[in-house]
């Protein structure tokens, strides 16, 4: 493998992982933008998304009596992937809205640390739900996308570069979701209500915006994205683990802060950067140091540039 191929390969891995991180980061950024809370449980909602998707895919394969989802007839396979994405997204959205209702709503006017501690408690609960539901083992998420090497098998190009259909599908699923979110926030009435609530809750309320509904909607959207990200993560990495939400949640939070928390494009940019940085660290150092590298990056970013790359000063309220 030549140097330029290697660089490209690391970039490809980084972008595919970064797309997933970005989807989770959007959940952090949306919630922080609107109620200035680090929704600590968000990563674990994402984990439950993977678990839901895994349960569904296992159920579908056993119902149709095949050993492997890839043995399903193609239309059914596509249908079950889409169904898996939608169901996981809806389950996570429901959980996220419930979390807001139970653990955060009453603390909306409390000192800043109270809802954060409540969020940590929630995260702890969800981790243990995952643990009891799916055992403490690292689970295998079956292949649902055929392993086809695009350059070699489709175009017949001889290269050391490995780009599979899986990588393309991950990005092809994640990017439209992000564009859709951006359009929703910028173009629709509800999106406008969200932006107004983020800017000034009292004023928005006086304009007739239902604050509780708008905040619940924000959690709903964050949950949808986390559920989609969870199933995409399972498909891409072929694994499901009850602690994955903790690590990926922190990665995503790092991404959100790096991009400028409260900023949707920022979360996307940050997610991609974190994905690439993690891939580079995997390659140059050792995968076992990657976590430490990303967390150290989080500390450094928070110390030197807490507003992030695209951060606006408007988030600096309170």
């Amino acid at each position: 493998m030549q140097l330029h191929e290697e660089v490209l390969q690391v970039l490809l891995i980084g972008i595919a992982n970064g797309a997933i991180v970005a989807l989770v980061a959007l959940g952090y950024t949306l919630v922080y933008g609107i109620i200035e809370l680090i929704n600590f449980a968000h990563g674990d909602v994402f984990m439950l998304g993977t678990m839901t998707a895994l349960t569904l895919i296992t159920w579908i394969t056993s119902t149709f009596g095949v050993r492997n989802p890839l043995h399903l007839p193609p239309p059914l396979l596509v249908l079950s992937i889409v169904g898996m994405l939608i169901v996981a997204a809806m389950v996570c959205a429901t959980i996220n809205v419930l979390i807001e209702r139970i653990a955060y709503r009453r603390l909306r006017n409390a000192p800043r640390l109270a809802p954060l501690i409540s969020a940590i408690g929630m995260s702890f609960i969800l981790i243990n739900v995952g643990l009891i539901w799916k055992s403490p083992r690292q689970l295998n998420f079956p292949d649902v996308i055929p392993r086809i090497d695009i350059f070699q098998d489709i175009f017949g190009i001889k290269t050391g570069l490995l780009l599979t259909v899986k990588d393309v599908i991950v990005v092809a699923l994640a990017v439209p979701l992000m564009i859709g979110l951006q359009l929703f926030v910028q173009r629709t009435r509800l999106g406008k209500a969200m932006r107004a609530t983020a800017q000034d809750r009292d004023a928005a309320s006086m304009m007739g915006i239902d604050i509780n509904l708008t905040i619940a909607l924000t959690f709903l959207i964050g949950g949808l994205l986390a559920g989609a990200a969870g199933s995409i993560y399972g498909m891409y990495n072929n694994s499901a683990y009850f602690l994955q939400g903790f690590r990926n949640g922190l990665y995503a939070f790092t991404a959100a802060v790096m991009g400028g928390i409260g900023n949707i494009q920022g979360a996307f940019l940050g997610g991609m950067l974190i994905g690439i940085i993690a891939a580079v660290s995997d390659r140059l150092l050792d995968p076992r140091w990657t976590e430490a590298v990303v967390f150290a990056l989080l500390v450094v970013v928070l110390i030197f540039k807490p507003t992030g790359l695209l951060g606006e000063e408007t988030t600096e309220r309170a």
Partner: protein
Amino acid sequence: MSTAAAKPASKSRLRRNGQTPGTVFRNAFLVTFLILLAIYPLLDRSLGFGKMGSFPAILIYTLLALGLNIVVGFAGLLDLGYAAFFAIGGYTAAFLTSPISPLAPYFQTNFYVAMTLSFITAATFGVILGAPTLRLRGDYLAIVTLAFGEIVPRVFLNLDKWTYGSKGMNPIGRPAIPELIDGQIAVREITNSNQLEWYYVIFIVGCLSVFAIYRLANSRIGRAWMAMREDELAASAMGIDLVQTKLLAFAMGASFSGFAGSLWASMLQVIDPFQFDFTISIVVLSMIILGGIGNLWGVIFGAVVLGFYDRILTQDATNWIHSFAQAVQLPVVTDLLLQVDLSQFKYMIFGVALVILMVTRPEGIFPNRQRAAELHAEGPEGLDQLGEDALVDRTLGGVRA
């Protein structure tokens, strides 16, 4: 932010030195509780509980809770990476006393020196982490400490050339205690199995810590911490150096965690990175929030109760359910009950406790008075609608002294 009118109701709640019946009852309860703790080993033996084995660990958790209370309760800084300092303390002790440590050929000390050094090392790391980060806002600081808490065990895991990675380090030096043999005082090391001696060594260290923290809380520094917690702006206007005061709280908290870590490592005789994960930080946080954040006695109570739950109750309750199931011998019920394993749900309770407490009673069971007032005030600033006289008076008093 405009100031709303002070509510008369909150004034009566904030009576300054008033010994209401509630306070008397509360103090009586806490004193009884401490006496029980002091004589627990006797009770355990005479009543035949057979639970001594778990108690040294519970006391170490209590030490951790006392230290974290300085940071979170007194100074109001949320530290989610507290286990990192616990790990640093434990590994310091292991490096200095274990025969397999890389330092062994050059330098070895006895346990007490190692304990002191782990105190100092943890404090140093507290300063190293705190100096750049304590300027951050509260929730960002929490996340930074959380990241630090994840990095430290991982570094100990990955540097396996020195720390033996996941295998851990073993053995580790033990504290020596004086003993009276034939009228002569001899010094010997505590053996692993002697839970009674461990209990009292940790209990004595704990009492010294409580005394130190109690004096600290009522000193000039302690009052500066609380003033800062209540209102940073007002505190700095009164001449408190915010960063320095926060740093001191952070370092003090870290150092308590550090020597608790050395006791922990020495008691278990083995140290590996998995003993110090995120769970520890959250368990200790739950302890101080349950007992009453900022209140020394409440924190001790919360720590012992949750420690008891964590170490003893889940196992026992599971056994009770199982023996009940075997006793009744019903067709379906017995099978179901025999499958119950409460230790699986053990940590879920900590999460549930945090959420319920935050939503319903954020000040904990035995609250610190000012802290409770602050948590119940409406509005993000907290100070606005209180019976201001009590609070402002105290903050000012803290600085004037």
